[in-house]
Every structure is written in structure tokens, then in C-alpha cells.
């Protein structure tokens, strides 16, 4: 149990934690704005990353433009899902379970479509800040991971500012807290819900693009990211996207420490057990502030 091993575990934990946080933030943003648990949040990541890969390799766009293209793709798919399915079901005031099943169905469909149209290969994206690494006490962290952490924190602060300072952000929050109340003040609630899905899609795609240089993207990545994103969002109290950032980091660190502390094969067992315990003992998630329905 050398120091460098612990440091390496911390680096891996924080890097993974930021990825889980980005997926988790998208998940709680969508839940906060529409009461829908989005089981296809991981597919947004796959779509965003695959679009960026195709733009980069096919059309030769510069990397930054390809990233923007990927993020926009995630946002567009989010908007399409809301307009085509969620809005119709909301009008027929479908139960929460059926929304969960809708997103499970969409996740199956999208993952199978990526396999069929783009194939079963894994793809990589060039790392941000070059392929160099930072070595501290023999523990290694890639420049890209540092960029990922910085962008992750930046995205969290931007989201906070968006919700509290921009008019759209405020009305989205109002619509999510009390739809009828918001409607009376002239907020177009259903358009706010579309923006919520756009935001969720954007965050998901961004997460996917940022993680691809580290872990690569293929058609199967979606479900795994969604599960970890769920855990992060739930640890953060589910209705608080910023809580998801803390939740994601916690989950990443718990996993890494479980690997060096217990054994690498029990990582998932430990991570999901911690999730269940926290859900039971701390119904409002780690931050304990944001209200949560039921439980």
C-alpha cells in the first residue's frame, strides 16, 4: 500500500468521478425539469462522442468544432426525445414508471442503432492538452484528465450560474418546482421541459466527448455510464444537479479506494452497496439540502 498507489487511486477516482458527475448532472437536470428518470443518459454520451469522432475523421473539422458538433448532436437528440415522446405522454399524464420504461426502451433502441449503423468498434479521440502526463511520486495523471477535471468543475459552476442568473434558467427552475405556479406567471412550461432535455442532452454529450480520449467509446458504453450516472445523481439528492457533481466524485473515490482497500473484483459490489446505504440513511442525498419526493 505505497503512497504512490494511493495517489494513483485518488487520481483515477477523481477522473472517473468527474465523468460520473457529468452524466449524473445531466440526469438530475432532466429529473429536476421534468420528473423523468432518464435511463438513456449514457446514450447521449455515446451519441455525442460518436458524432465528434465522425466529424473529426470524416469531415476533417478542427477538433474544437467537432466537439461543438458532438455537443449540439446530444442537445438535438434531447430535444427530439422530449418533443416526440415525452410531450405526448405528459399530455396523457402518464405515470412516472412509464417515463422510466420509455427511456429504457429508447436506450435499447439507440445502443442497437449505434451497433448497426456505426458498427461494433471502439473509437478514441485525441486527448486535450496533448498526450503528455504529469507524474507525482510515481503516480501518473494525464494532461487530458486535468483538462477533464477543470472542464467538469467549470461545467458545474456554469450550470449553477445558468440556473440562478439567466432568465431561462430561473424559469426552468420555477417550472420544475411548481409547474402550475410557473404557468400562471406566463412561463411556457412545456417549452421549459424541452430546454431541460436539451440541457440534459448537452451535458450527457459533453461527458461522453470528454471521457472518450481516456476510455474510448463503443455501442455498449451507454448502459454502464447510465448506471454510474444514476448513482452519482442519487447520491447528490437527485433534484440537485450540483449535488450530482459531489455524488459523482464520492462514487469515483469510493470505487478506487475499494480497489486498493478490499479487492478489485468487489469494486461494483462496494460502490452499489454504498449507494443503497446512502439512499436509505440520507434520503436527501449527501448534501441533505434539496427536498426529495417521497422516501
Amino acid at each position, binding site marked *: 500500500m505505497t503512497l504512490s498507489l494511493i495517489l494513483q487511486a485518488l487520481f483515477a477516482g477523481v477522473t472517473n468521478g468527474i465523468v460520473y458527475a457529468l452524466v449524473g448532472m445531466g440526469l438530475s437536470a432532466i429529473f429536476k425539469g421534468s420528473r423523468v428518470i432518464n435511463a438513456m443518459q449514457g446514450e447521449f454520451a455515446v451519441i455525442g462522442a460518436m458524432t465528434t*469522432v465522425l466529424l473529426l475523421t470524416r469531415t476533417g473539422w478542427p477538433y474544437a468544432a467537432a466537439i461543438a458538433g458532438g455537443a449540439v448532436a446530444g442537445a438535438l437528440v434531447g430535444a427530439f426525445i422530449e418533443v416526440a415522446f415525452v410531450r405526448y405522454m405528459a399530455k396523457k399524464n402518464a405515470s412516472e414508471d412509464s417515463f422510466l420504461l420509455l427511456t429504457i426502451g429508447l436506450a435499447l433502441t439507440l445502443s442497437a442503432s449505434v451497433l448497426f449503423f456505426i458498427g461494433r468498434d471502439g473509437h478514441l479521440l485525441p486527448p486535450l492538452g496533448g498526450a503528455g502526463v504529469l507524474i507525482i511520486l510515481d503516480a501518473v495523471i494525464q494532461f487530458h484528465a486535468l483538462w477533464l477535471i477543470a472542464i467538469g468543475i467549470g461545467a458545474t459552476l456554469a450550470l449553477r450560474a445558468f440556473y440562478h442568473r439567466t432568465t431561462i434558467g430561473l424559469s426552468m427552475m420555477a417550472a420544475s418546482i411548481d409547474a402550475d405556479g410557473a404557468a400562471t406567471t406566463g412561463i411556457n412550461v412545456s417549452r421549459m421541459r424541452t430546454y431541460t432535455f436539451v440541457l440534459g442532452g448537452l451535458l450527457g454529450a459533453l461527458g461522453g466527448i470528454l471521457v472518450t480520449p481516456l476510455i474510448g467509446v463503443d455501442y455498449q458504453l451507454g448502459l454502464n455510464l447510465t448506471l454510474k450516472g444514476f448513482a452519482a445523481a442519487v447520491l447528490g439528492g437527485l433534484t440537485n444537479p450540483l449535488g450530482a457533481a459531489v455524488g459523482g466524485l464520492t462514487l469515483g473515490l469510493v470505487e478506487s479506494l475499494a480497489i486498493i482497500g478490499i479487492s478489485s473484483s468487489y*469494486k461494483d459490489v462496494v460502490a452499489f452497496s454504498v449507494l443503497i446505504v446512502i439512499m436509505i440513511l440520507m434520503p436527501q442525498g449527501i448534501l441533505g439540502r434539496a427536498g426529495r419526493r417521497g422516501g
Partner: protein
Amino acid sequence: MSLSSFIARLAGATALVGLSALSVQAQTSGEPVKIGAIVSATGAGAGLGVPERNGLLLAEKDINAKGGIKGRPIKFIVEDDASNPDTALSKANDLIFGQKVQALLGPSLTASTVAVGGVTHANKIPQIAFTGIGPAVERERKCVAHVLPPQRLNATALLEYAKSIKATKVGVLHDAGYGNVVMAELKPLADKYGVKLVAIEKFEIGATDTTTQAAKVKASQPDAVFIIATSATPFRNVKQIQITQPVIAAIGSSSYEYVNAMGPAADNIVIPEFVVGEDPLPHQKDFVELYKKTYNSTPKNYEAAAWDAAHIIAAALNKAGADATGEKLCEAMKAPYTGVLASYNFSADDMTGIPISSFIFSKLVGGKYTRTPFRVAQ
């Protein structure tokens, strides 16, 4: 795989349909000899199933072009089990009882093979699986042959190479599926080759990050690192945390998809396998050329294994009679056969009979496969 290879895939598929139709008229006529095949074309095993299907359909064209089975065309009915043993079981029932196939090739994954083996064994349908022999129950199934080496042979090949580069301390990074199976055979054999397993780290299937496990392997200062997995993640993580010792990978990681997914990490990795398309052995040349001409991509082990299985069953049918099945076809199938992948002897106790000397040791250099001269003496 980018858009271009998608178009190639589509072109390849249509080309094949055209080709197989063409070949049927040219040299053979009459009632086709129906042979069933199950592969994992979708789901987690797609990396094995699709190459196997390509190899099978190419073999069908080749066999029919050379006169088929005593003048009659051979027809492979290929079903997809979506990497799921339950589906494989239903497909097997359909092929055997519905379509009345005379023999069965595949499936791609061990779990499906054991499930289907129960049906073929009970109904005396000869089967050639695209997997290495697995749990003990398969040893009693005398008519279920395997065209890929048993995991014990894979483990031996890894240890032979480690011994050849004098690596006495070896660290292992393996997944909970394929990795578990090979490790179960490797652990008891290690000390026979003077190899001490200084670190054994496992990660779950579909893991997106194994850096911490890789760090634990690095901390044990091994002379070499074994990676036994069906994903590119461990290879990237090993290079990311600056492990400079040589990496020796099991055959399961040998597909071009994994090499693409490894990116720059696909360097200084030795893999005991059978087919290096870039530098094929003399008896593999025409298979590699035909494959490249048809699919304009380079074949690997799973394409060759399916190709061999198809030819073995064709040879057995030619010997035992076009309508032979059951015991008669099973006996004919057991004659020793030198295929593209390796030479087989299905009457051996591991139902494969691939000699250790058939292994060739490829080395990834800058993302490209090269063939090393190292071979294991028999």
C-alpha cells in the same frame, strides 16, 4: 470503424449474397446440403460473431466453387444468438428439428456452446464450436469438436513466451469473464514454467477504467504483464501509467477492433495467436488473399477458425456421404485435418488436438501486427 468501413461492410454483405448465388449455379446443382450455424452477431460477443460469419460465408463460396459435396451445393444457415445462451438454445432447436440440419457450427461464446452442446449431444448432431473446450461436462460430448484451443493451451502459450524472455515475476490484469476462465488454467501451470504471479488484478466486464488495478500490478514490479480480457481498456491504462515492461496478451484481445480502440497503446504487445494477415504462413496465403479480395479487410483468427470448421465439415461429408449425419458424420469429422488456423485432431481428449507448436507469436508495433520468429517446440 468509420463510415467508409460501414459502407465496406454493406458492400461486403451484398457482394457475398451475390457471390454465393453465383457460385451455386456455376459448379453445383441439386438439393443443397444444409448445415446450421449460430454466431453472436449482436450483443457483447459481436467482436467474435461477425468475423466468424464472414469466414463461414466465404468458405461456403469456396467449397461450392470446388464442387460442393459430391456435386451438391453446401448451404450454411447462419443464426444470431445475440450473445445470449437462452437464444442460442432456441436457435439450436429450430436448426436441428425445424430445418433438419445435418451438423451445427458455432456458437461463438463458451456459455452458448455448453447450452447448445446439451442439445446436439443428446440428438447425435455433430457440432464444431468456435470456442475452446470449457467446463468438464464438455469432455463427455464426444461429437462436439472445438476449433479454438482450450484455455489450458492458451495459458501454456503465455507462460512459454514469458519463460523465453526470462520473465520470472509476472503481473496479471484480467476481466471477470474470459479472464477468469484462462486464469483458472494458468494459476496451476505457472510454477511449472518458473513463473511467479506477483500480482493478480481483476476488473468487471465492460469496465470503463482499470487504472487503479493496473497501478497495483505496477507496484509489484513484475518482469512482464499478462493481460487477459476482451476489451482495449486495460491495454490503454497499462500504457497510461507508464508500465514499460513487455505486455503479453491472450488471443481474445487479438481483433483489429481492439487494436483500433487501443490507439497509441497498441505497441510492444505480444499475442500468441494463429493468423497474422500482414505476414501469413505459406499455407495461409490463399485464404488471406481471398478474404482481402472479398471484404477488403484483413482476416484474423476467428475468420480462419470458421473457415476451417466449414471445410472440415465439408471434407467429412464428402467422405461419409452428402446425407451423412449422426455417428457416421461424427467419425468422419474426427480425421486429422490441417486447416488455415492450425492442424486439428478432434479425437484428442480436448476435442481440438491443436499442437502448441501451431501458435505463432505476433507483436504489435505502432498499431501494426508483425510476426515474431518465436515458436514453441512440440
